[in-house]
């Protein structure tokens, strides 16, 4: 019998944590486990999920994209405005337009980060403010309202693919799951996908292997922007009303989902299946804290912060132990290599 691989073990642990969380809240909140819980969490995860998957591509290459919240807001607003002006646009075209707009904004990030070798956290902190101010500038502070949209847009968010005893599986949820599956296949099974891992796990080795580092990082940011654009469309469809604060601070939730889902913040390892579980876990805790009588709902943000810190620390410790074990196995008595951060203490 072969032992489970480390990534598979990781996913199982995450699933166990998710199950324990459900059980815990079920004992705390009356009538917790019902169809409404599933419906509510699945739709709300569906909107954030594309953003988190895109973030995973960027994080895999050792970067971070803090501008996604502003991209969601900007594309939701622009798509809404476009539909207000041209209500007869074919429905299949609209999400593609949203993705193209998001992809262009992502390309700005990707260009600045890959061309000038600037730290992505600073660049995207800047574009976070720039994209949001563009949105404010173009909207003039006005909102998009449900009434200005063609009827199919809000209807799409409500449409069920399957319905059974009150449990509803929305088309929107299936779309988000399709994004996860496609991303998983690309990352796990294609050459282009493996390059993201290679660049993040060891850029020098990747360059020697003939991988174009700049192009790979650029691609990751474009994917992240395009998926944030898709999320912008889903946001528009689900909420109908878009103000200038749409998508505010979603970058933190997406980073949270990615890191809690086991993608290594130092790049190079993790899977989008983990991101799916991470996003679900965060949303579950978020929604449940609101309903939990013992603790004020204002704990949500603090819990998210400590959850991210805990996940990152756990990841670093596990990686370090793995490296030490490998070093011991290959060379008895050898000292472990540097920690992934390169910050190991002397």
């Amino acid at each position, binding site marked *: 019998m072969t032992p489970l691989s480390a990534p598979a073990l990781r996913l199982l642990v995450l699933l166990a944590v998710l199950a324990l969380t459900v059980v815990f809240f079920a004992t705390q909140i009356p009538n917790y486990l019902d169809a409404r819980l599933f419906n509510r969490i699945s739709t709300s995860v569906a909107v954030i999920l594309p953003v988190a998957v895109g973030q995973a591509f960027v994080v895999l290459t050792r970067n971070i994209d803090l501008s996604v919240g502003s991209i969601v807001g900007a594309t939701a607003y622009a798509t809404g405005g476009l539909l207000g002006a041209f209500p007869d646009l074919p429905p299949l075209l609209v999400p593609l337009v949203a993705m193209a707009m998001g992809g262009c904004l992502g390309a700005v990030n990707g260009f*600045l980060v890959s061309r*000038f070798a*600037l*730290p992505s*956290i*600073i*660049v995207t*902190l*800047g*574009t*976070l*403010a*720039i994209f*949001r*101010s*563009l949105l*404010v*500038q173009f909207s003039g*502070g006005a909102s998009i309202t449900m009434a200005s949209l063609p009827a199919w847009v809000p209807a799409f968010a409500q449409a069920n693919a399957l319905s059974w005893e009150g449990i509803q599986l929305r088309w929107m949820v299936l779309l988000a799951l399709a994004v996860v599956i496609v991303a998983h296949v690309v990352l796990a099974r294609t050459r282009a996908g493996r390059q993201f891992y290679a660049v993040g796990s060891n850029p020098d080795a990747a360059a020697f292997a003939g991988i174009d580092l700049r192009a790979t990082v650029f691609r990751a940011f474009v994917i992240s922007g395009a998926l944030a654009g898709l999320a912008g469309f889903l946001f528009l469809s689900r909420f109908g009303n878009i103000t*200038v604060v749409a998508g505010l601070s979603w970058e*933190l939730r997406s*980073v*949270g989902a990615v890191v809690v889902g086991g993608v290594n*913040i*130092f790049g190079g390892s993790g899977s989008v299946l983990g991101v799916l579980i991470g996003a679900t876990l965060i949303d579950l805790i978020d929604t449940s804290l609101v309903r939990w009588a013992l603790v*004020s709902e*204002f*704990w*949500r*943000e*603090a*819990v*998210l*912060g*400590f959850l*991210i*810190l805990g996940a*990152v*620390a756990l990841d*670093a*410790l596990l990686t370090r132990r793995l490296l030490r074990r490998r070093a011991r196995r290959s060379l008895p008595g050898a000292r472990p290599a540097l*920690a992934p*951060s390169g*910050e*190991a*203490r*002397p």
Partner: protein
Amino acid sequence: MTALRERLTSWEGFLLLVLVLLYAWNALASPVFLTLGNQVNLFQLSIEKVIVALAMTFVIINGEIDLSVASVMGLAACSFGWLHGAGVPAAAAIPLVLLLGLACGGFNAFWVVRVGLPSLVVTLATMIAFRGLARVLVEDRGIGGFPAWFNALGQKPLIGPFPFAILLFFAMAALAWVLLHRTVFGRQVTVIGASRAVAEYSGVDVGRVKTAVLVASSGVAALAGLLFAARVGAVRGDVALGFELDIITIVLLGGVSIFGGVGSVTGTVLAILIVLSLRNGMALANLTGHIQSGVLGVLLILSVMVPVFRGWFQRVLHRPEAVS
């Protein structure tokens, strides 16, 4: 002669030129800009940010970053409000809040120095967590009604037209200059940022210096949070939200390298004056806060490209022998 020439063609010289042009532009655009009242006002409205920028200069030169400062400011202001609401006298609450700030810095430093995580990730997480704690303390209320002497610290002129907070900034700027450029500690901060390995082999206690810098950063942020509470006279959960954008922009614009090892307090002070007069000029021109943030975002990206520009700039201005 070469020394003077180098000084004039340095990054600080360039910043000085930008500053003079900006002041001239603003003075022409608005007659009130150059009045002493407006200048004091310009400083007073952003005094908390610029105080934190001084501490952030040390953090970034040290090769680290602290994204949690704005949340520590918020947490400090909110815990002061919470203590006030619980009946603790302000004179006792102030040291407690400052201690809390130092503890926040100690928490960051534990994960960075002891566990060995990058400060970028740690302070991104604590940015969310400390902000969350601030919201837990005050929920969605606003807390005010602080004693008059406390509010006076942020509002009333103390000496001439200058309130306490501005005088404190001048004192801290002088202290920061001496500390960074004239003490062993300052040299250690710089050498660690330039090359950690060299610092270690030279016998510098890297962990202790990094801890000191991160703890000081949060401590100063807590002080700034208290000044914010005093100036505004009330606190809410979103105090200082997003201030890290301005603070990091100022420091990087001042010529501090994001990769550590390079930077000066003079550069930061010049960048402070540039950003403040830019914001003031935009406000006088009736631009909204969101647009101002967008301009700051552009400035942030330009300033992180300072090393790129600095390279071009010196290649144009210096002959090869002057560079070495």
